[in-house]
């Protein structure tokens, strides 16, 4: 079957889609957008989290046919998405605002990564790098989409709020401490930017 939908602001068309295919498969294998990850394919890990009409969902559990005419944002479009949200004031790049040392419970000092020079990142993406929240990185795309959406709803989350919002995203490398740091850092930077 054929499916038409919008991905990261661009209309897309997928042909010859098998009816049992998930949105995750279509994104990864048909649209060249492998950023959403295929860690469990049963909704238990959150690595494939995307926003479907603005709502974070596991793309592995959305049948491809169900996204006809709908809007999807993946990690590949997160920086643009955040930038558009911030337009008219605010700091989309994350380069402004709170220093690392001032962020809540911050311990280790990071220096800048310049490997991404020229790449514009959303606040949450930059915070994940700066806080050391990325190790193998397989859980990272899903966590970024989920954390960004939480900060959109709740710009000043408590630690318990962060944990609850991210309880659907498994990480096996970090023990979550640096992920907590990253979300706190992003929240602090975003609030300073407003």
């Amino acid at each position: 079957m054929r499916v038409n939908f919008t991905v990261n602001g661009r209309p897309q068309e997928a042909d010859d889609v098998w009816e049992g295919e998930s949105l995750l498969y279509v994104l990864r294998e048909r649209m060249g957008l492998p950023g959403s990850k295929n860690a469990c394919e049963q909704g238990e890990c959150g690595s494939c989290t995307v926003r479907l009409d603005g709502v974070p969902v596991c793309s592995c559990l959305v049948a491809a046919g169900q996204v006809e005419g709908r809007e999807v944002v993946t990690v590949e479009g997160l920086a643009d998405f955040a930038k558009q949200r911030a337009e008219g004031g605010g700091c989309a790049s994350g380069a402004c605002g709170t220093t690392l040392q001032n962020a809540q419970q911050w311990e280790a000092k990071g220096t800048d990564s310049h490997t991404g020079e020229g790449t514009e990142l959303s606040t949450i993406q930059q915070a994940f790098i700066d806080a050391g929240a990325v190790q193998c990185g397989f859980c990272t795309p899903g966590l970024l989409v989920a954390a960004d959406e939480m900060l959109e709803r709740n710009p000043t989350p408590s630690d318990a709020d962060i944990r609850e919002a991210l309880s659907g995203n498994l990480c096996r490398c970090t023990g979550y401490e640096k992920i907590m740091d990253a979300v706190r850092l992003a929240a602090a930077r975003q609030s300073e930017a407003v």
Partner: protein
Amino acid sequence: MASPSGTPTKITQGSQTKGGIGESTLRPDGTLKVTGEFAYSSDMWHEDMLWGQILRSTVAHAEIVSIDTGEALAMPGVYAVLTYDDLPTDVKNYGLEIQDTPVLAHGKVRHHGEPVALVAADHPETARRAAAKIKVDYRELPVITDEASATAPDALLVHENRDDHHAGHVPHPNIVHRQPIVRGDVTAARERADVIVEGEYTFGMQDQAFLGPESGLAVPEEDGGVHLYIATQWLHSDLRQIAPVLGLPEDKVRMTLSGVGGAFGGREDLSMQIHACLLALRTGKPVKIVYNRFESFFGHVHRHPAKLYYEHGATKDGKLTHLKARIVLDGGAYASASPAVVGNASSLSVGPYVVEDVDIEAIALYTNNPPCGAMRGFGAVQACFAYEAQMDKLAVKLGMDPVEFRRLNAMEQGTLLPTGQPVDSPAPVAELLRRVKAMPMPPERQWESSEGADVRQLPGGLSNTTHGEGVVRGVGYAVGIKNVGFSEGFDDYSTAKVRMEVLNGEPVATVHTAMAEVGQGGVTVHAQIARTELGVTQVTIHPADTQVGSAGSTSASRQTYVTGGAVKNSCELVREKVLEIGRRKFGSYHPAWATAELLLEGGKVVTDGGEVLSDLADVLEGEAVEVEAEWRHRPTEPFDLRTGQGNGHVQYSFAAHRAVVEVDTELGLVKVIELACAQDVGKALNPLSVLGQIQGGTTQGLGVAVMEEIVVDPKTAKVKNPSFTDYLIPTILDTPTIPVDVLELADEHAPYGLRGIGEAPTLSSTPAVLAAIRNATGLELNRTPVRPEHLTGTQLSEG
């Protein structure tokens, strides 16, 4: 063929980054990983590629009467169906140490989920449907599942006609390897003991549960060879096992490391590597294989489950007298890393304590259970669970504080291991315990808020099972010792190729190794080492592949030590060559070129007095310097097969934990409130990454304390929970804050004084949590993971 999309590229780290060793420079691959552009092995894609599917056994132990592939082959879209009979050469088995694992089952399957046949098709669903149409007729055999059934007089042999190098010294062919360690006089020492404590402990089967399932892409090449893009822990070990099965020389099997979604030991063995290559060579098309989570549980080895029998004695003033220990590890159907796990479990069975008289035996069994092998902590984890439980029991019996009792018996530099080997670097065991105990305690009753109980802070979490009823706090301590690097005489080396040149007027270093970056941050550290040693800011990390010599395995906490050591060594050799060029070009302009100690700093050649002699750009103008060299840590020796004596290890890593838990004692639910850790890291090359390793390792230890276990049916040897629905790993709501106190006592034998750090925190985390639960409940708890049933006395079936 053209390169597939997702082919790894060089990554250059910044022109402004100054970070050498000791600084928390950020990951060179960080930006790619947060934008979704970093290509993992499952992201590889090639025009016209096919999808591979593996048919696995549905039973654990059976003779294969027949396999019929006709119907599968006839399906439209199916390009190949392969069985054992299609293997191209006489080499039909592989294995890390013992080549006992069939590429495809032949005549017999020995565990649930063993690969039997392969399919390549144009869509994964077509491949799945075709695999389902392959008819395999099994004649089931009785299953061997434990020591009793493995060594019974009439036991079937899991492997008949063994001729491996352990076959000669094991007491039974269903025992992979046995390592006794005998030292001193246990009988006499036992006489001196005022108290004796015995225990029988059970450690469940843990899964690495890395998030990126096994996957890779094999692309056939015009010269008849194959290029494999793969997520692994050790490219050259894979290569050594793959090439003979394909009947290709090693230089025709090109391997490139694709993005690796975690490993933790689970990628040390082969998974789909040979299968993808066989299908690609047969069809002439690129073949991608991606396991789903269900298959992943069958696609890699797990942590050995173990039974541990311990007897310790102590004098009434609290000194340990002796240890009698017997450790039985279940290796499952194939050997994998079992022999080395036996070596670790036995040689580290005493823990970080002084015990002069020991009688220890460790064995690994062949059974029809899932194969077990490497996982973070590797044999030392199971032992630590047992000896730390023993330490608590002894402390209780002696009426001593558990931490003080441990400190009293703690090893230090110079202590002899039970193997007779002296510990020849700092061993701050007592200090780590002191530090972890001194950390501030988390406040009580954190769940109380103005709006009532915040269930997220309570056992049961969002499930709303308690508002404080039945909740009791407990505190527990544990400490452990882990060896670093490959032991027992293994030639453990790494290779690094370092190139230095001028690009756009700026000196740039390129580091090329075959090290598997699995998330640990080795690439970050390599760039830091190059900056420190070569005085450059820009460093390019070349993708890891087999175009350079082996970097050994990303395991055994060894990569920063050994491949880091190799990068340092090659940088030093490059520096010498650069200075030679400088002397040749500019030596006549300044006498210091000949007389002073020269360094490379800030892009310049400087004297040790700080005088600038030249820009590196001028020295390297028109000339590039490149060195590829191997580097080894100090050699080790095998353990004596009868006494276990020998200088088997090269370095040790120590960590201590304090766990604070709150247990709902009525429902048996546990919330870990805090897991504080103190660890000696020798020298923190990258402090941010060090914390990440410690916190991550700690959390894996927490998982196997309270929830993680692969459950195997003892009647059928079939896995009962191969999914993330029923194999649970900690979520962010299960994971507490993990404050870390890092100690840096240099090991003079290691590069920069560093210590391998990745595994030690996984050891002591589990027994600390168990100790805290015992403290809260007063229960004995001799197994891990501890389930609600064990805390409520409801573990037995009603019937």
